[in-house]
């Protein structure tokens, strides 16, 4: 288990968004988190990645307790995420966006950057080359010098993945990566996610596109109304009557 969530509860004022949710993510797997709207999927992501603080419960990354860690500390430990609404650095170029991903993997300080010490020049060149490779990974290398907010939506999702990969993460959490993509782009995404897994990186995704989830995930966790409903293989999930009734709204 690379990532473990233990008894997470999150209350916003009187509203309980997550109620005692526990789950584990196997190292190197692709795990999907599904559930109807309002199930608490994004809230769970926000807690794991340090953007929200949970009311109670713990999060572990490879048995290290990471509850209440800041997003930047988690990034340094190799935990990265993408966003449902795509959070790019819009005024920077596509390449620069990916280069920011190398931040934790580089170390030049203010002085060496201002005075351009030889070591910094070397590091900068390395960052640039590596970033170009991550752009090639998502077929965005032709757009390297374009401003990020001029990218079409489908490509901006890919750029977000490139940028996350530049961090050389151990776990990547994707929040609805297929939302807004057409069917061709979704197929490309599925291929990309498999490639990421082949690099030894654990993928966790929240997704509404059931075909995609059933196709690529090894384990699926179902949340409903803030509670964990069940966890299992795609086949088990598809046959689980509780899941079906949760989605159909019958209880």
């Amino acid at each position, binding site marked *: 288990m690379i990532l473990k969530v233990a008894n997470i509860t999150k209350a916003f004022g009187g509203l309980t968004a997550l109620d005692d949710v526990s789950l584990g993510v196997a190292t190197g797997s692709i795990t999907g988190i599904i559930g109807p709207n309002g199930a608490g999927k994004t809230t769970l992501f926000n807690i794991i*990645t340090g*953007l929200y603080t949970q009311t109670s419960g713990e999060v572990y990354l490879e048995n290290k307790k990471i509850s209440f860690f*800041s*997003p*930047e500390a988690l*990034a*340094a430990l190799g935990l*990265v*995420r993408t*966003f449902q609404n795509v*959070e*790019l*650095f*819009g*005024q*920077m170029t596509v390449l*620069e966006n990916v*280069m*920011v*991903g*190398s*931040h*934790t993997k*580089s170390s*030049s*300080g*203010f002085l060496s*950057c*201002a*005075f*351009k010490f030889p070591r*910094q020049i070397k*590091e*900068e060149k390395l*960052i640039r080359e590596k970033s170009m490779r991550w752009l090639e990974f998502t077929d965005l290398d032709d757009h390297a010098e374009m401003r990020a907010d001029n990218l079409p939506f489908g490509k901006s999702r890919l750029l977000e993945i490139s*940028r996350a990969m530049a*961090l050389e993460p151990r776990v990547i959490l994707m929040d609805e990566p297929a939302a807004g993509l057409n069917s061709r782009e979704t197929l490309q995404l599925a291929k990309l996610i498999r490639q990421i897994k082949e690099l030894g990186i654990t993928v966790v995704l929240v997704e509404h596109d059931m075909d995609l989830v059933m196709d690529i995930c090894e384990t699926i966790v179902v949340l409903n109304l803030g509670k964990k409903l069940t966890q299992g293989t795609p086949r088990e999930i598809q046959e689980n009557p509780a899941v079906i009734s949760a989605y159909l709204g019958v209880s």
Partner: protein
Amino acid sequence: MTKEKRQIFVFLIFALVLLTIPFLLRESYLLNVLVFIGIHTMLAVALNLLLGYAGQISLGHAAFFGIGAYMSGILTTRFALDPWLVIILAALSAAAIAFIIGFPILKLKGHYLAMATLGFGIIFYIIFNETVGWTGGPSGLSGIPNLQIGGIIFDNDICNYYLVWIITIAVMLLSINLSQSRIGRALRAVHDSEVAARVMGINAWVLKVQIFTISAFISAIAGSLYAHTMTFVSPTSFGFNFSVELVTMVVVGGLGSIYGSFLGAAILTVLPEFLRVFEDFDIIIYGLMLILINMFMPGGLISGFQLLAQKVALKIKGK
């Protein structure tokens, strides 16, 4: 020419032109104006690192300028310390103050940050006015010595010109380098999306404090140079209005452009000289500039220049 070579070329031309000006232009009044442009450029570049790159506003930057100027003034006139040593001391003190105040102040965002920095600036303005025993209060502090190296005393326009512009050009070069490095990218990332920057492992809070500190350091150096070239300082130069003027320089020239800061500083320094004919018009014109540039040219005047340069380049290529 690659992009990088072109940038070096532009910078060299820029530096060369500035350093040859005194050979072509001997008029003392104009050299004086240029000295001011240099000091203002330094300040605008310092503020731009914070405002244009990291996207964090400061409406109290005149305080750091004032700290530099007053420390230089007080320590050289009352304690007869070596002025060069004092410049470094003053810059370090301003940086230390910025560092300490930076942690709580840069937790704040947007409008609240603006108000807090403004309050900070006004507190220092009041201190400059009220600690009469040290600063001379509203009537100011005079008799600040000129700087000197070996036998050269920086007491005339040409000497001051080179003193100020060599340091300004160095500040510009270092800032350009910084802005194009991983740190510059991190700053711009924080500007565009703080959440995403943090998820990418950038400690936004600490980074903001660091750039705030550096910005204060540069501003204090500008303050010290101001004190030594003017040999007189008084609080009116370091009040809220000047803080706003600095923001205006950065916005008018172009947020996130080092050359833009030069342009903004030049325009806002020269403008009052022209407007002297219609005294009192400067305030209203600053206000108009801030509004109009912000609405119709968010990239500042420098972006207009760049567009023009591109068009010219295309035309030449076309022929």
